[in-house]
């Protein structure tokens, strides 16, 4: 990170995104925004509020409901050196554009032997818990994290939202920038001035010695909450915030687990073939000899998410589920290997 930190302000994740888009639009005239309802309507979640007014309709382009069309159009503009930042209203709708993202944006640089690069950013929120029912509540990060040629970031704080979005816009490759519905109003300290994160790096956001929780995006917030709660019970929990899902910072994960000997992954996606599966395999390959207990995953129940509040709550992983599993992992180890 390059820093010229003098002051910080406490702002929301939403505001951090808005300010960063504004700063990048000001800095580089090749940057422009495309998305549904981002101009006149100011964005479904108001991330682009005020930008149409200040930058005009050529820099803030309202698109019809045509995800495949406008994502592909952004890709084409990127091929000619523009730096489009696309907003897809939610990650669920990105499935309509997935051909342009996976078959085209992710492939071009390699397939055309480096003759073209794709400085494209696709921003979109995922997340359940708002009673939006099965088609509007998905966490499809692993769909993109699986694809070589894409970079996938998932900031959990307003500060990271700023630094990672800045990095994503200045990056010469397609970056999938994952936001989360439940983080938009979250507040945090954000350093003023230019902040550019290094994509591909995780962060230890809380140190501890007994167990490592690995998470990302909204999950990191819950992980920290649980870690602090268990601290009061005398447990020392380390929290690793992935920040980047592709590439994955395996060293940071393994270094932490090597120290603590225990790991739990907290993820919002479905369990089978999810982010946690990749983390667990990494820990198994990297630091198996240092593990005192099996790695456990806390993930969503594998159902299309129901609308009814009670069912939705039952299906989504929460702080209580995480705390329970952390205790189970630590108990297992203390009874199994009498240290």
């Amino acid at each position, binding site marked *: 990170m390059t820093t010229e930190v003098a002051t910080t302000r406490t702002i929301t994740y939403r505001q951090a995104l808005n300010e960063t888009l504004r700063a990048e639009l000001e800095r580089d005239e090749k940057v422009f925004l495309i998305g549904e309802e981002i101009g006149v309507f100011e964005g479904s979640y108001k991330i682009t509020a005020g930008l149409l007014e200040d930058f005009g309709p050529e820099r803030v382009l309202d698109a019809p*409901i*045509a995800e495949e069309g406008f994502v592909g159009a952004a890709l084409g503009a990127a091929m000619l050196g523009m730096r489009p930042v696309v907003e897809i209203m939610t990650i669920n*709708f990105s499935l309509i554009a997935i051909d342009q993202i996976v078959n085209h944006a992710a492939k071009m640089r390699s397939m055309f032997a480096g003759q073209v690069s794709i400085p494209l950013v696709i921003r979109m929120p995922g997340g359940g818990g708002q009673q939006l029912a099965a*088609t509007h509540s998905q966490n499809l990060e692993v769909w993109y994290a699986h694809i070589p040629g894409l970079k996938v970031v998932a900031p959990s704080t307003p500060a990271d939202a700023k630094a990672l979005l800045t990095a994503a816009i200045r990056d010469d490759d397609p970056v999938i920038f994952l936001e989360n519905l439940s983080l938009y109003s979250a507040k945090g300290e954000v350093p003023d001035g230019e902040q550019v994160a290094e994509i591909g790096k995780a962060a230890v956001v809380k140190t501890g010695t007994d167990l490592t929780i690995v998470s990302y995006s909204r999950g990191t917030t819950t992980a920290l909450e649980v870690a602090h709660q268990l601290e009061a019970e005398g447990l020392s929990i380390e929290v690793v915030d992935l920040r980047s899902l592709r590439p994955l910072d395996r060293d940071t994960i393994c270094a932490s687990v090597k120290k603590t000997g225990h790991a739990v992954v907290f993820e919002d996606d479905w369990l089978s073939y999810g982010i946690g599966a990749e983390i667990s395999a990494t820990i198994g390959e990297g630091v198996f000899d240092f593990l005192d207990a099996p790695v456990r995953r806390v993930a969503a129940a594998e159902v299309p998410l129901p609308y009814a509040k009670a069912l939705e709550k039952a299906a989504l992983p929460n702080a209580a589920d995480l705390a329970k599993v952390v205790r189970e992992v630590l108990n297992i180890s203390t009874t199994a290997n009498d240290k």
Partner: protein
Amino acid sequence: MAAKARTRPKAGVESTGGEPAETLRDYYERMSLVRAFELRSSEMYARAKIGGYCHLNLGEEATVVGLTAAIETRDYLFTGYRDHGYALLRGLSPERVMAELFGKVTGVSGGRGGSMHMFDSEARLLGGYGIVGGQIPPATGAALALKNQETAGPDAAAVMCLLGDGTTNIGAFHESLNLAGLWKLPIVYVIVNNGLGMGTTVEMASAEPDLYKRAASYRMPGVRVDGDDVLAVRDAARDALKQARESRQPVLLEVMCYRLRGHSVVDPARYRSPEETTIAQQSDPVPSFRAELIASGVLSEADAAAIDEAADVRVSEAVVFAEESPEPAREDLFKYVYATPVANAPSALPGEPVMDAL
């Protein structure tokens, strides 16, 4: 096929002449029910009885009544997410529709779908789709199945597929209409053109804003009708359905109406100018149809008031039912994932171990 100018406020039926008084009264009862239901939905949302996204048919009642009056019991209906009125007038009880909004097990989709996902296989309402354009390919496929299952004729079934003006810009719309045109499918695509996507106008979103003209690309008749005129909507839809069932000729019908409020209950619609809001209010089909029926002597003021009162009572009963209904049981979380039971189907709740030690 006269275009209805958006700038010209005009509401009410062209003429009620020749229509039996019973029918007109019935249509007003239906419009009044949808109006009362939607106003109450909005209120229940504000009281947090309803969650998620909630899109209302306010201002579109004449369209809802006209279209559902045209469709026969044997026909199939697919809609987008602005679906409460269609569910009600397809014959689903207000109790079951309100219970769905409340997320109760007695709801039309067992509380699992919510506002955007009304479904009733018996009533041949095959959804309720939250993804823009999601309903168009399956509706087209339903018409393909009908073509295989039945011979064309006045007694054949057809499919009616509803979609918004904004939805005509998604690829699935164009792919599906091409299939229907090519394969001669018994389907009527109805564009409910309320002038807006969320805040984006038709003119901002569609290179050809006369949306019915898009039919030409698929050699399909394209028809535009005034959506505030319940009889005109019904007659245009009947005629389109007749072509679909008897001649396997798909039709694109564009119904011009206004959305009275925001895109969903949480949208204050600040992007709308006061003039636009005034036009939408002046075109409100419910009071104008009411006034029309009183003026032509079909209803007295007292009759109309009694109908409105009855609609309100009906909706109150639905709210009580929804309120008192149980929530779906947690044990049933995985109940409907697969039709054919399968070995090793996941059934772990968050935090449960993925397997027992072998």
